[in-house]
């Protein structure tokens, strides 16, 4: 058989054709457990705790659990706006397009930029954690202490993860459930054993018994500590919103709306609060706050579980970091793809790999930026890498807050039509937006003081995290104007849109490919 014949035929462009769309049997049957797993895995509890435990405890001491509970409130409110903006129009999928529709192209562009910057920053942090915990896993302490070795492994991590995203390699749902289950169980085991040791007197010297006041936000005496803690804590819930959007695809989403989101929420808040409380009780707030190794959770794991069981904690952090890398690269590449399709960024970013069907140009570019950022920051100062988490919080607070306001504004004509509408698309998103705006502004003021940064150093008399955060946003504004001045005016001419009357009460729209089989 001569296959070359085919190559000649199929090179010719078609004229008229009948293409039908059919929805797969399984695409709309994303199970309840899968939805919960997606929500929890997207937020990556193990990695998040490893990254922020020290920072939160340093900010508020024993009230760390309270801040973790409090930080969830704005996220819950913003989740309402994700849910309803997602419902408003099945064809608009991202914060970038929502904000563009509701508040205009300029604001929308900046919102998209904030997502990209946040993702690039978190990749550096993720790579750092992966490198560090990788060495801890094999018990190579001298390598874990070496900046060069950790950075090297971190860069390899980013390269491998980027390649995985380009190739579109996916774990099966069952493997994911298994991995996440192991992660959650490990963290629970850590918390339970730590608490038992606290009460049997086998904990560390600074150990204290948990107190109900740890869980009360009102017991936090420092407002600076509270906002810094909130900013960092916002980061650990980052990614949770994907449960809400994914939930729409779930089977029976009409009869059991948001059940998966609620369950994954309880799991997440539960893990964070219990593990933070157990860690503080076991080692004392002072010891955790003063940790400068960058791997407080790993070290505590060793003390709590003893060898070799401490490896479980390290494995949990590493699997979680792997999941988080994926849920970082994927949405970034999708945001830049959305922006490219809208004409807000170069069209090449919207290219899809013919064989792997992934946005490979976007993905590779983000991987490249992450490496440059990671290596660059490490060269300047390793402390700045930790500072960048605070800067990351600024980005997340900015675009989550904007999404909240965009939701209320988009639905502004629907607000007074029903109590439900008023609460879910009016009060909740706006309140979420206001809280995040407050955290953003207050943190900017706090972070401007060099003393509040990890490194204690000052750039131009201002704390590094603020320079990183504001600097990257201003850089985005410059890029936006360059793009505009290069003649790409169409995107910036887009008109504002408002929700269709009655769209709030309408049943959720089906995802786009809903045409039947011909």
């Amino acid at each position, binding site marked *: 058989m001569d296959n070359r*014949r085919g190559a000649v035929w*199929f090179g010719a462009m*078609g004229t008229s054709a*009948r*293409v039908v*769309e059919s929805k797969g049997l399984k695409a709309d049957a994303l199970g309840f457990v899968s939805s919960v797993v997606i929500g929890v895995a997207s937020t990556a509890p193990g990695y998040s705790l490893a990254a922020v435990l020290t920072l939160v405890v340093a900010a508020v001491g024993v009230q760390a659990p309270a801040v973790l509970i409090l930080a969830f409130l704005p996220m819950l409110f913003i989740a309402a706006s994700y849910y309803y903006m997602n419902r408003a129009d099945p064809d608009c999928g991202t914060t970038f397009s929502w904000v563009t529709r509701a508040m205009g192209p300029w604001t929308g562009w900046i919102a998209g930029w904030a997502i990209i910057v946040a993702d690039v920053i978190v990749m550096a942090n993720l790579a750092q954690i992966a490198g560090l915990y990788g060495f801890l896993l094999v018990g190579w302490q001298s390598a874990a202490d070496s900046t060069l070795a950790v950075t090297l492994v971190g860069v390899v991590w980013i390269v491998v993860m980027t390649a995985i995203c380009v190739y579109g*390699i996916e774990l099966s749902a069952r493997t994911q459930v298994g991995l996440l289950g192991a992660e959650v169980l490990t963290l629970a085991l850590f918390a339970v054993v730590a608490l038992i040791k606290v009460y049997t007197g086998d904990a560390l010297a600074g150990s204290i018994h948990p107190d109900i006041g740890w869980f009360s936000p009102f017991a936090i005496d420092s407002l600076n500590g509270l906002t810094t803690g909130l900013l960092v804590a916002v980061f650990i819930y980052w990614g949770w919103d994907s449960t809400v959007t994914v939930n729409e695809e779930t089977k029976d989403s009409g009869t059991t709306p948001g059940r998966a989101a609620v369950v994954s929420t309880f799991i997440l808040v539960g893990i964070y609060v219990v593990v933070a409380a157990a860690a503080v009780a076991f080692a004392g707030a002072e010891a955790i706050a003063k940790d400068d190794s960058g791997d407080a959770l790993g070290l505590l794991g060793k003390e709590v579980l003893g060898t070799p069981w401490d490896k479980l904690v390290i494995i949990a952090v590493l699997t979680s970091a792997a999941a988080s890398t994926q849920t970082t690269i994927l*949405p970034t590449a999708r945001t830049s793809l959305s922006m490219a399709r809208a004409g807000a960024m170069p069209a090449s970013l919207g290219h899809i790999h013919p064989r792997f069907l992934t946005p490979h140009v976007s993905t590779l570019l983000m991987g490249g930026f992450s490496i440059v950022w990671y290596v660059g920051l490490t060269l300047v100062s390793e402390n700045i890498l930790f500072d960048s988490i605070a800067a990351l919080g600024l980005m997340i607070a900015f675009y989550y807050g904007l999404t909240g306001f965009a939701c209320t504004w988009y639905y502004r004509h629907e607000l007074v039509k029903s109590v439900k509408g008023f609460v879910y698309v009016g009060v909740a998103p706006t309140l979420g937006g206001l809280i995040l705006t407050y955290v953003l502004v207050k943190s900017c003021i706090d972070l401007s003081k060099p003393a509040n940064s990890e490194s204690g150093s000052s750039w131009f008399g201002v704390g590094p995290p603020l320079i990183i955060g504001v600097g990257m946003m201003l850089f985005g504004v410059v890029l936006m104007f360059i793009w505009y001045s290069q003649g790409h005016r169409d995107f910036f001419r887009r008109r504002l849109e408002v929700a269709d009357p009655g769209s709030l009460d309408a049943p959720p729209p089906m995802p786009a490919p809903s045409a039947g089989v011909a």
Partner: protein
Amino acid sequence: MARPLVVGYDGTPGAQAAAAEAVALASELGAEVIFAFAYWTNPQGGEVTDMLAALRELGEGHLREAQAAAESAGVTAHGELVHEAPSVGLVDIADRHDARMIVVGSYGEPPLKGALVGSTAHKLVHLSERPVLVVRAR
């Protein structure tokens, strides 16, 4: 009329080889050819709408091209997009149309690389209860 042949078609050289073989076969059997483009994207990390739209556009382009080529060879054909992982999606479409067989391309890759980047042909031969014809790209 003979039962249709389902061809996994994504415009790559392997798929072109598969399509050529299937059209030749269909022409002899007097069967219809259904070109299928399966697309799927990880729901993790949310924000899939634009990505899916881009994939659908890509798929529609490929399917139109394949259909036109088949029709110019005198074979009845149509294209179908399916929102599912490629191997599962092809099996679904084949089941719906009670297809005679599924035809897919292979890339002639070393087995390890094929396993790493996920060979649809490999998964398909294990999943499908219908015969699977694998045509290697030249």
